[in-house]
């Protein structure tokens, strides 16, 4: 039983890379999780290596019981994302680069750093839109069989191997070499 992504990648997703890439890598991640922090530069390196063959989709899986700032960080990223995909990804990068400083004031500072409108961010947060999106991501993760943070899906199939760069790169090369159905 290899778990499969139940909610397909769509227009609402945050996507980094070419829309016609041969491989779609979906990451369910938590901005406060140290393993996700370790995976962040590895994923960036994979994107650089595979270039137009690989695109990344990021969805939220905040484990709020163990990571007290994770849900707030995810919600702020989604609120910023309402102002454009480039701002979402700038926020995403900032959060993973500052995993140990995710308190309220720090998050407000990052919103300004990425050039988002703080008042609009506040509206997205207080209206519940951002938290609803994060909750929906979380439920999608559970129903897809996410089994920890980070969980990766490669072309819709859960990736259960090590996400060390060498192993992951080798796996993706093998996927590229396999004729598609």
């Amino acid at each position, binding site marked *: 039983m290899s778990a499969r992504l139940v909610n397909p990648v769509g227009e609402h997703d945050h996507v980094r890379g070419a829309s016609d890439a041969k491989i779609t890598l979906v990451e369910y991640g938590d901005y406060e999780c140290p393993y996700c922090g370790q995976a962040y530069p590895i994923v960036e390196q994979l994107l650089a290596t595979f270039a137009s063959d690989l695109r990344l989709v990021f969805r939220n899986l905040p484990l709020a*019981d163990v990571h007290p700032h994770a849900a707030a960080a995810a919600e702020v990223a989604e609120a910023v994302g309402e102002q454009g995909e480039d701002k979402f990804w700038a926020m995403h990068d900032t959060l993973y680069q500052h995993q140990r400083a995710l308190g309220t004031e720090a998050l407000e500072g990052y919103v300004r750093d990425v050039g988002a409108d703080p008042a609009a961010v506040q509206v997205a947060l207080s209206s519940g839109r951002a938290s609803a999106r994060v909750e929906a991501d979380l439920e999608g993760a559970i129903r897809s069989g996410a089994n*920890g943070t980070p969980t990766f899906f490669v072309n819709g199939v859960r990736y259960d191997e090590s996400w060390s760069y060498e192993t992951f790169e080798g796996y993706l090369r093998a996927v590229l070499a396999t004729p598609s159905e």
Partner: protein
Amino acid sequence: MALAAGTPAPDFTLLATPDQSLSLSEIEGPAVLIFYPADWSPVCGDELTMFEAASKLFAQHRAQLIGISVDGAWSHTAFREQHKIEFPLLADFNPKGAVARAYEVYDEKNGLCERALFVVDRDKQITWSYVSPVGVSPGADGALNAVEALS
């Protein structure tokens, strides 16, 4: 082979804390039994944390999550606190592995529970079971689907 769907779930009474025990027969609604090898091992932490994250979805069906390993109640207490796990972790500790044996998920060679999941309905029948490779956290999707299929 783990006990399969259609088999009556063997009852058990195990310590949930150093001075409180829990029996399967006390659970009114459905139960999800999560057998795992050991407190403190990285995969088990991931597995139980995912079930904790999914606990709201299980609660919608009044399903009780129950973790079971051969660790003692003191270890479970510390592990639950560290990983912020709200559902009970039971100590299959004395005689060691007796409940895992009854469910046919005891790894005799290593003296640990296998990584196995059972969904038990309110009539105490097993309706779904799954054994995961020991190094792979199974995720909560299979058990959630099985619980949703009950209602």
